[in-house]
């Protein structure tokens, strides 16, 4: 039942595209934040609905209280991006929102605005970059808070989900000399997976 959606070639191609796209996203983020971004190797998995929460735990390695923000993206391929970090590390994120002159954002941004801002920047960079590789130009919805100080299991509530299978792409990054780590999980359900597969075939055909 593992990886039922993709052939090995397709899966390798998707991994390759994710690596490339996340590298480009990190370059953009580095320039925006004026800091060196350390990025993990993206993890790509397709999971059944019942395994989603477990997969999320395994991919992020997070336990304890987390803060999660969601954002929808839509093009031919549509889905949701989750940005998750440890609730205790949110204050540290402030360094990510420094203005162009390096000034502190504290006077001008509330904590929740800061979280939304970081989540949006991370999700936007990574999702745009991957979809760009697949030939799609997404439209994003505004970020919304799933919850602060919640457990990771509360992020996916199986009873509220309407899909059977989903494609998850996880990547996490941190800043040089900083402790915190921000996790991005891109989630695409059934019909989008088919479009991803077609896009992969097109790319594979070109090479």
């Amino acid at each position, binding site marked *: 039942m593992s990886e039922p959606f993709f052939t090995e070639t397709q899966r390798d191609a998707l991994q390759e595209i994710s690596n490339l796209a996340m590298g480009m996203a990190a370059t953009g983020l580095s320039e*925006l934040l004026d800091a060196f971004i350390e990025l993990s190797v993206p993890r790509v998995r397709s999971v059944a609905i019942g395994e989603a929460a477990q997969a999320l735990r395994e991919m992020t390695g997070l336990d304890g209280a987390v803060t999660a923000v969601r954002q929808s993206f839509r093009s031919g391929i549509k889905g949701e991006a989750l940005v998750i970090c440890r609730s205790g590390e949110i204050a540290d994120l402030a360094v990510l929102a420094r203005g*162009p002159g390096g000034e502190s954002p504290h006077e001008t*941004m509330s904590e929740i605005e800061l979280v939304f801002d970081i989540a949006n*920047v991370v999700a936007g960079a990574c999702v745009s970059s991957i979809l*760009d590789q697949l030939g799609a130009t997404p439209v994003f919805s505004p970020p919304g808070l799933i919850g602060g100080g919640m457990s990771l299991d509360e992020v996916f509530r199986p009873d509220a989900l309407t899909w059977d299978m989903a494609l998850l792409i996880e990547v996490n990054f941190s800043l040089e000399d900083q402790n915190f780590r921000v996790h991005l999980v891109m989630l695409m359900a059934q019909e989008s997976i088919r479009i991803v597969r077609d896009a992969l075939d097109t790319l594979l055909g070109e090479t």
Partner: protein
Amino acid sequence: MSDPVGKALDCSLSELVVERVGLGIFVVDRDMNVQMWNRFMHEHSGLSAQQVIGRSLFDSFPDLPREWLTRKVKSVFLLGSFAFSSWEQRPYLFRFEHDRPITGGVDHMQQNCTFMPLTRGREVVAVCVTIADATDVSIVQREREEALAKLREYANHDGLTGITNRRYFEAQLRDEFARWQRQGGELSILLFDLDHFKKINDEFGHVAGDAVLRTTAQRVSAVIRPGNTFGRFGGEEFALLLPGTTIDEAMLVAEKVRLTIGAEPVQVDGVRVPVTASCGVAAARAQNDDYVSLVNDVDAALYTAKQTGRNRTHIATTKPSLAQIIPAARPAP
């Protein structure tokens, strides 16, 4: 030349839509120079397209949050993705009037902003900003929050006297007791009861009884520290929580409360109803495993005050624990 239909036909339909839509739409380039400015922006800002296009947005609007806005736009250019701003975190970007001057209650139009990349090929050539009026939503939300706050208030307060109800008092007591267990220090509690309250009801009627309860709550509220939790514990029973207070200090508070209640008769419809109260005092001590046992201590003290003649204060006696009694009761072998 000024034929409006002819002019309209020169424009594409999408241009006409942009012009008429009830949404602020404008476009800036990399240097924050305005490239496009629709009618909504003109009407609300008072500056026309001719006045702002080709100039830096900050020249036309020096009040804008410069660093913040520059960074938002920069992120869109760099990452090729969207950026957002919600009225819930940042009520507005531009100081626009809203169209609810009478029913509003907010100072300016509440705004949701979206920053969209405009791309040619893979290059972001400009950023389009849309401003949506969220004033209505914000007002509905504020009203809902006010209603919720009121409900919470009702849920925690006693309807007759307006002071804290028992449920809320016990929750506070539980929290204070837990803090005392963790951090030590002092924690005292008063429990007092109006003397012969049934007789007041029988003699003067329930309306008078209710007035006595309300007056008692008011009189006591006026002499205690504002931060102290004061609640109606039962019918004619009241409780006062005294964190950081020794038993001796609590005794002084109890006497002040008791004397305040009985200082003068309560006036109800020209009738003078004399009132006195009995009071129990207890402080948390090591033998108290939980807050309920502290309530039992103070309840016992109040019972003694009643038994020994009423209109008086009694301190909970520090009974030696069983562990202390048993060795003494058994002679050493």
